[in-house]
C-alpha cells in the first residue's frame, strides 16, 4: 500500500475542542485515482492536509510508502512534500510575483537543481500542458483554468508519486473543470501517478475510480467507480 491510515484522530482546539476526524481507516494503493466527498465541514481538507504532511494528527498511524509519518522534523516533512507529494489547491496558490515558468521550476530549486536544467524541465512541462506561450506571464494575467494547469505543472515537475488536490475545480467553470480533471485522469492513466481529489461535485468525483465518502469524521461508503457512471459532469448535480 502506498498510503495506509489507521485510526486517525484529529481535534482542533481554538478555545473549545472540535473533534474533526474520529478514527479514519483508509488504504490507497499505488496508481489509484481516488476522490473524497462529504458535506462541508466534514473534515475532507483536514484529512488531505494530514496526507500531505502539511498538518499533524493526534492519534493513529499514517504510513506513507511503508514509512511511519509521525513527529517528523520540518526538514524531513519538507523532503516528502518536495519529492513524493504534489499539491494542487482550489485557490491555485501560485506565487504572484513569479512568472508561470518560475512558479513551475520552484520545487526543483529546493532540490538544488541548476538554473538551466530546471528552466528546461519547466518549459517542457508547460509545453506539454499547452502553456508554452504563457510561460513568461504572471498569474494575474492568466485565466483560472490556465492558473490551475500551471499549478498542476508545478506539482508534477518533481515527478511525485502522489498528487493531492483540494477542490481543484472549485474556482473554475464547468468547461475548464473538465479540462483540469481530464488532465489529472490522463496523468493517472499514462504516468501512473496516484491521485487523490477532494471535491463537492459529483461530476468531478466521477472521474475517479474510487469515491470515498466522509461523514461525521468517519469513512462512510466507499464506491468503486471503474465504469465512471456515478453521475454526469454537471455543476447542477451537486450532491
Amino acid at each position, binding site marked *: 500500500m502506498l498510503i495506509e491510515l489507521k485510526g486517525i484522530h484529529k481535534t482542533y482546539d481554538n478555545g473549545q475542542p472540535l473533534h474533526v476526524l474520529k478514527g479514519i481507516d483508509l488504504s490507497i494503493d499505488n496508481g489509484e485515482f481516488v476522490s473524497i466527498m462529504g458535506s462541508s465541514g466534514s473534515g475532507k481538507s483536514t484529512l488531505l492536509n494530514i496526507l500531505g504532511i*502539511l*498538518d499533524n494528527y493526534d492519534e493513529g498511524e499514517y504510513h506513507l510508502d511503508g514509512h511511519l509519518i509521525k513527529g517528523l522534523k520540518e526538514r524531513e516533512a*519538507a523532503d516528502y*512534500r518536495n519529492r513524493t507529494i504534489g499539491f494542487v489547491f482550489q485557490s491555485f*496558490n*501560485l*506565487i504572484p510575483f513569479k512568472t508561470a515558468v518560475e512558479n513551475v521550476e520552484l*520545487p526543483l530549486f529546493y532540490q538544488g537543481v541548476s538554473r538551466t536544467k530546471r528552466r528546461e524541465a519547466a518549459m517542457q512541462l508547460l509545453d506539454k500542458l499547452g502553456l508554452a506561450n504563457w510561460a513568461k506571464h504572471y498569474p494575474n494575467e492568466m485565466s483560472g483554468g490556465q492558473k490551475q494547469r500551471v499549478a498542476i505543472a*508545478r506539482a508534477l515537475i518533481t515527478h511525485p508519486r502522489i498528487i493531492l488536490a483540494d477542490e481543484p475545480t472549485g474556482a473554475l467553470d464547468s468547461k475548464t473543470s473538465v479540462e483540469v480533471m481530464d488532465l489529472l485522469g490522463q496523468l493517472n492513466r499514462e504516468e501512473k501517478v496516484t491521485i487523490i481529489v477532494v471535491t463537492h461535485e459529483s461530476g468531478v468525483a466521477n472521474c475517479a475510480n474510487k469515491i470515498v465518502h466522509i461523514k461525521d469524521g468517519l469513512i462512510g461508503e466507499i464506491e468503486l467507480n471503474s465504469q465512471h457512471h456515478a453521475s454526469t459532469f454537471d455543476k447542477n448535480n451537486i450532491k
Partner: protein
Amino acid sequence: MHDLFTEIWSSVRRNKLRTILTGLAVSWGIFIIILLLGAGNGLMNAFMKQSHDFATNTMELYGGLTTKPYDGLQQGRWVPLTEQDVKILQGPLFSDHIDEVSASVADGNNKLIEGTRTYTVTLYGVYPANKDMNGEKILAGRYINENDLNERRKVAVISDVQAEDLMGGRDNYKAILGRAITVDDQVFTVVGVRRSDRQWRDTRIHVPFSTYKLIFAYDDLVNKITFTFHGLRTQKENEAFEKRVRAVLNRAHRAAPDDEGALYVWNRFTQNMQMNRGTDILTKALWVVGIFTLLGGIVGVSNIMLITVKERTHEFGIRKAIGAKPKDITKLILAESITITALFGIFGMLLGLGACEVMNATIGSTSMDIFGESVKLLDNPRVGWGVAIEATIVLIVAGTIAGLSPATKAAKVRPIEALREGKG
C-alpha cells in the same frame, strides 16, 4: 547566489520606498561613524604632530620654587638648575637608566645685525645631543658637535626661514653656510640650517653651550636639562625613577628631597603613554556613539523585515508546501536583511569618506596660532582602509542581527496556517 539575489530583488522591488527609507537610516548611522572616526583621527593627528618629531623616551627638568622649608632655608626659594646637575645625571648614580644628557640655556632678546637691519633673535646654548632629543632636522651643513663644545667655537645653527630672511629669497637658505652673523656684537659662523615648520618665524639660533656661557654668562646656571632613558616600562617605574632624580637633585640644592616644587619634571614617555591611552579611549567612544546611531537603522531594518515576513506568510506557506526547508526560508530573509544593510551601509560609508575629504580640504588645511605656535585643528581627518573594512564587518553583523528575529519567525511559519491565512 544568483537565485538568492533574484529573490531579494523581487522582494525589494515590491517595497521600494519602504526599503529606501529604512535603508537610509543605516546609511546615516555608518556615515556618522565614519565622520566621527575621521574627525577623531584628525584631532589626534593634529595632536601627535606637535610631539611627533621628538625622541619619545625623554624627560625634561626645569628649576622651580621650594614649597617647604628645609635645612634652615625658607620655602619659596628659587632653585635654578646648574651644570653640576648635568654632571650628576651623567654620573654613575643614574647610569642604570639615563643614556644621554643635554642642557640648554637662553635668556631671550638678542640682537642680530645684518647691514642696516636689526633682527630680534634668541640665542640658545645647547649640547650636541639636543639634535636627536628635540628632533631637529638639519637641512644643510651640520648641527653643533662635540668639538664645538670642547673648543668653545663660535659657530651657529639657524632656522631655514631666518636664513632666507638674511639671504633675501626663498629656498636659498644654503647660501648662508659658512657666512658670519653678528649677534650682540659677537661674530658666529653659520655651520648648519635647521628646518622650522615655516608656519611661524623661528628665530632661535643654536650655539654651543660652552661658547654661550663663555660669552654671555659667568655662572653655571641652566634653563633646561633633557635626558633620554631606557628600562622604564610602566607608569610606576617611571614615577619611582622621577622620585629618585628629584631626591638627589633637591638635596644638591639644599631642598627637601620630596619637594615637588623645587624641581619640575616633565616625562614625555609617560605623557605619550597617557595620550595613547586617551586616543584609544576616544576611538572607542566614537565607535560606541556611532554604533548607537547605527542601532536606529538596524532596528528599522529589523522592523521592515518583520513586516515583510508578515506580508509574505502566505507565500512562505506555499514555498513550504512545495518543499522549502526552514533554512531555505531563513536564508531568504537573512540575505535580504544583510543585502539591504550592506548596500545602504556602503552608500553611507562612501558619503562618510567623501565628507572626510571635504573636512580635510576645509578645516584640515586651516591652522590657528596658539601660544605663538601654529596648530592645525584637524590634521588629515580621514579613516584608513582598516576602518572601512571594520565598518563593513559591522554592517554584515548588523544586517544579520536585524534579520535574525524576522528570519526565525518566517522559518517557523506552519504551512497549513500560512496557506489558510492567504484565503482570508
